[in-house]
């Protein structure tokens, strides 16, 4: 036990200052971002993540949000196992046709009001995989999307900027 405690003491607090929200990531046609939601959610946010067909690159960066450096829980944001507990749906990948129904059902299972953030070039525009017999392309082809975070994959900082953009009170669009 003393080794664990020494290691924790030696490591110190590694958490860095969070970035500002990047409001450019908001989609112009976001229907769901309005003051009522923001009042409701404030800065305590519960996220449900769904991989709708990604290459697993974006997942690596979502995991990194839990590192001491980004410490996402310290910002009042946590990941939930059930969509019924979630305020925000974080979707990675182009939506594969085999995941289309599961994604819709997850979205439907979330309580209102709810937000959707599409992650990565694939989530934004289909990315390298595009639309095909196997892929529906971007997330907004399947469910409404409020914020898109580009990148292949987006860095943890970009992810935070996008997630905060979904819940930051501002009239700027």
């Amino acid at each position, binding site marked *: 036990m003393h080794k664990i405690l020494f290691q924790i003491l030696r490591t110190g607090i590694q958490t860095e200052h969070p970035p500002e929200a990047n409001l450019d990531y908001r989609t112009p046609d976001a229907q769901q971002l309005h003051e009522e939601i923001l009042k409701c959610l404030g800065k305590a946010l519960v996220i449900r993540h769904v991989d709708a067909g990604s290459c697993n690159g974006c997942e690596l960066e979502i995991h990194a949000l839990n590192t001491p450096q980004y410490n996402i829980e310290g910002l009042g944001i946590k990941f939930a196992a059930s969509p019924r507990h979630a305020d925000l749906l974080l979707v990675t990948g182009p939506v594969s046709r085999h995941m289309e129904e*599961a994604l819709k059902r997850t979205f439907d299972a979330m309580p209102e009001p709810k937000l959707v953030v599409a992650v990565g070039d694939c989530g934004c525009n289909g990315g390298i995989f595009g639309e095909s*017999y196997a892929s*529906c392309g971007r997330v907004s082809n399947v469910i409404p999307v409020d914020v898109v975070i580009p990148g292949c994959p987006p860095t943890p900082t970009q992810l935070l900027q996008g997630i905060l953009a979904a819940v930051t009170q501002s009239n700027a669009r």
Partner: protein
Amino acid sequence: MDLHDFPAGLTAIPGAMPVWHSEVSPEQLRVACTRIREDGGRLVSLWGSDERQRGGGFALHVALVDQPGLICLTLPIAAASPEYPAIDDLYPVANRMQRAAYDLLGIRAQGTADQRPWLRHSAWPADAFPLRKEFNAKAAYPASGNKYPFVQVTGNGVHEIAVGPVHAGTIEPGHFRFSVVGERVLRLEERLGYTHKGIEKLAENMSVADAAKLVGRVSGDSTAAYAWAFAMAAESIAGFTPPPRSLWLRALLLERERIANHLGDLGYLGNDVALAFGFAQFWRLKEEWLRTQHDLFGHRYLMDCIVPGGVRSELNATDLVRLLDEAEALEQQVTKLQDIYHEHAGVQDRFLSTGRVAPELAARLGLTGLAGRASAQAWDLREQYPATPYDRLEVRMATQRNGDVAARVNVRFDEIYESLRLVRLILNGLPAGATMQELPPLPDNGFGIGWVEGWRGEVLVALHIGKDGAIHRLHPHDPSWQNWPVLEHAVIGNIVPDFPLINKSFNLSYSGQDL
């Protein structure tokens, strides 16, 4: 096996790895597969191709490894009766690959009981085959039926737990069907294919440059391994050897990718046995490692750094010092954490004897990569078939015999130390010269294979070129094909709450096998 005794004449394919190729008859295919099996060899990959526009019918390709190297067999199949003899009686791992070959190309394995769809769920109808040339890749079909006949376990007190495709954490999608009595797992059946996004169809007619980007996104956590395997295949077809400095840099990137993934897994394995300290510590180290990669190679996960012809990365003297110092510091940190993991009774209690795959079972089922090495399957391409620069580095393979979660943890620790040793050797021995040279044009109808020991196991990329450098058929193969079926065995007799731990100890790719 002595290659002179081989049932069909073998032609050596030039390139970085020892690869032979031969066209075979159905009988010769069975004889060759049987003899390689008896010889202790393994099946690496199985895929099909449509050769009707090139004057043939269809073709089945089977890549096997035997002591001398990789043996690739091609069986021509008549378009009028698209069938071939099954080989899953010899190599159980072939079963899902055979089913995928039918789903995608409509060539049927004869003489096997399990003919259920594998990659096809509902996105395209049963009588359409995406990898046939006439198939319209842009078409969107109405969802077809999606009833999958899972094997039912019956008996007193047996019930089913269905999990997925959407899992509880940040994980790729797949479905697991557990049959349990109380807390104990009687049977697990996996259903994968949810992330199928048509990668192989997309690659048709692509240029080599575009496909390099695509292959780097088959499984994002193994992008360096895939990119190198693809480059190796293209360079083999072009009869081209990239500059030595680029090969040494590729190995540096591959070893860094291995270290990054092992750090992440060791953190999560701590997390899954309620040692959140382990997660915080290992992921702190991983994050620093990734930031260095962003600074020096331009991408946190090294995507698009390795390209046919060389690498897009260059290091100066200051960078080398930074990387050497980083390796030294990381080794000290990991040593401390390993000591803590080893001394922690709660951690060891959960790791030891959990999710055990005995060596005999691993050999029979063809368990590969790091999970294989944890079950005494002593295969590591870097040691056995060392391509430049591994021929100068004398890689020391990490193996364990227990085959449990603890063994897979230990292999990861050993491989981090070994990769750090290799990183230092590479940085100190990096030859001078160019890092990139233009790839000569690829000859029409060329065929090449790339084969690389990624962090999870061996990644194979088969590349068939058509005319004017355009791709005729591209097949990327992930070691997860081999290891997913073994996971079904590893959980038998364990309790359901240990499944996440066992699953994480394998950490297999969904995207890599769903394609």
